[in-house]
């Protein structure tokens, strides 16, 4: 069975630095797939290649049966591949509700002429997005902060909002770039709940994470990158006992 996301021999160089080399993996639908590796292993580069923020030098990216390599980011997003950013990228002056509404807006119909002349379609689109955003915030227990400017929220809260906003696209695949970075233990538990909720809604998740412990508890499959290359791939149990991984990466983290 083909994966929802298929990456074949993907390669990216920055000058002389090989950021991602010959990376291949397949994400089956319905699972939580994690990419781990030390700093500089190429995790975020891989992410940016898949989501259209960087152009690959060679290789192939297939999503939902289509080759998406070379597509602009907004087209990939509309095809059902949503992402978050390692450094928060909320719209700080907009409220939490409005941030999530921007995600919902991807699925409403309202052209420029509708918007300028205030047609009924504009009104209906606004109502649909508002209702959907409220429903999502309630689903993820964030309805208490709906009307607060996103920029004035606590850091951990902003991360949750960013995930919910990406979720508002109703993606088939959700790419999360180090969502646990900078979160305190309580916020991590909240994040785990958000991830569980996302999966309960049937979304496949691809997670880049630095925190190995978190990954081992939530991921179904794990890809280990080291210096831009695939070091190992498998279930958490396989990864924990993989000799190369233990030697290169887990050994020093655990000790």
């Amino acid at each position: 069975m083909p994966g929802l996301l298929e990456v074949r021999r993907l390669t990216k160089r920055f000058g002389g630095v090989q950021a991602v080399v010959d990376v291949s993996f397949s994400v089956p639908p319905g699972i939580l797939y994690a990419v781990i590796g030390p700093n500089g292993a190429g995790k975020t580069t891989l992410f940016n290649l898949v989501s259209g923020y960087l152009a690959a030098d060679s290789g192939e990216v297939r999503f939902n049966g289509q080759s998406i390599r070379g597509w602009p980011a907004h087209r990939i997003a509309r095809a059902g591949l949503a992402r978050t950013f390692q450094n928060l990228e909320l719209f700080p002056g907009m409220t939490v509700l409005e941030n999530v509404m921007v995600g919902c807006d991807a699925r409403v119909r309202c052209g420029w002429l509708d918007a300028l002349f205030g047609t009924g379609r504009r009104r209906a689109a606004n109502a649909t997005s508002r209702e959907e955003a409220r429903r999502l915030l309630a689903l993820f227990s964030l309805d208490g902060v709906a009307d607060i400017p996103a920029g004035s929220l606590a850091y951990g809260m902003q991360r949750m909002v960013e995930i919910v906003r990406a979720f508002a696209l109703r993606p088939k695949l959700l790419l999360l770039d180090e969502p646990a970075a900078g979160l305190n233990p309580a916020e991590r538990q909240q994040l785990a709940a958000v991830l569980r909720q996302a999966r309960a809604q049937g979304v496949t998740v691809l997670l880049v994470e630095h925190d190995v412990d978190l990954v081992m508890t939530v991921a179904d499959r794990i890809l280990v990158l080291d210096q831009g290359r695939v070091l190992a791939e498998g279930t958490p149990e396989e990864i924990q006992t993989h000799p190369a991984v233990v030697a290169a990466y887990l050994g020093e983290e655990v000790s």
Partner: protein
Amino acid sequence: MAVRVKTRRYIGMIAVSVAALALLAWGASPYWLSVLNVIGLYTVVAVGLSLLMGYAGQVSLGHAGFYGMGAYVAAVLSTRLGWNGWLTLPAAVLLTMAVAWVVGRPAVRLREHYLAMATLGLGMVFHIVMVEWEAVTGGSSGIVGIPALAVGPWTVEGERAWLILTWGAAAMALAMAYSLVTSPIGRALRAIAGSEAAAEALGIPASRYKLAVFVLSAGFAGLAGALYAFYVTFVSPSSFGVMMSIQFVMMVVVGGGHRLWGAPAGAATLVLLGEGVKAYLPALLPGAGGEVQLVFYGLLLIAILLLKPDGVLTGWATWRRKRSGEHARAA
């Protein structure tokens, strides 16, 4: 940054503005009526530019070029080709938008200040074309004798009649802009200004939207320019130089770009400041010529920006918030 706008508040403000305008139209001298007309025309330009600056986060330093282009299209079509004046208005708008699209297309793909640089160059090119293409534009002496706009047997003449057109256009521009910024597309524009990367990740084609709002703002400037041509009945290149472009940008900055009411407020501030300096400075400072007036004008603008860095309406908005806050507590 962008402010949530409340429909009820807007209806109230529109009612107050219409009443104030009607009162002024009834009582004001022709001089003040002409000042009001100019503010109305500049408001149309400033509304479009504030969509571009305050909502999409881009700057244009060439809007006087689009304003001038609208004016010249109206002037040339109505005098040389004998078009009906009203028909020249959509022609001016569409042609201006087409030129903006051609110029903006490469510029919006590039980040940051490329649009500002490209439009600055464009404004200069327009100015040179107006001066040099004498066969069509009349060179530096421009085009005179633009016929009045007419509705059947009635012609739109006199400052009072023009108030309906200039402020009608301003009201239309404000209404369209309000409808736009409170639509999914308005949210997308604010999203682009907040984080282009995140906007793209949510399926928003950022460069296409930036181009569209740039073209729209050029269309507003083209409309205002065409109306201006019929209002003053002559056009010449000196009205559409780079300084005028910078004044348009200043109107948006002084008014506060992320607030639609900032457009009329900024337009009024700049026009009244200019007129005030011209009228009162010679009395205070005998012998103060044009250059000294310009210096004072500049100093006053700097003072306004230092005191109200977020636009002249800032204090008013805070006062409203405070008042409604107390209201809420009392209830």
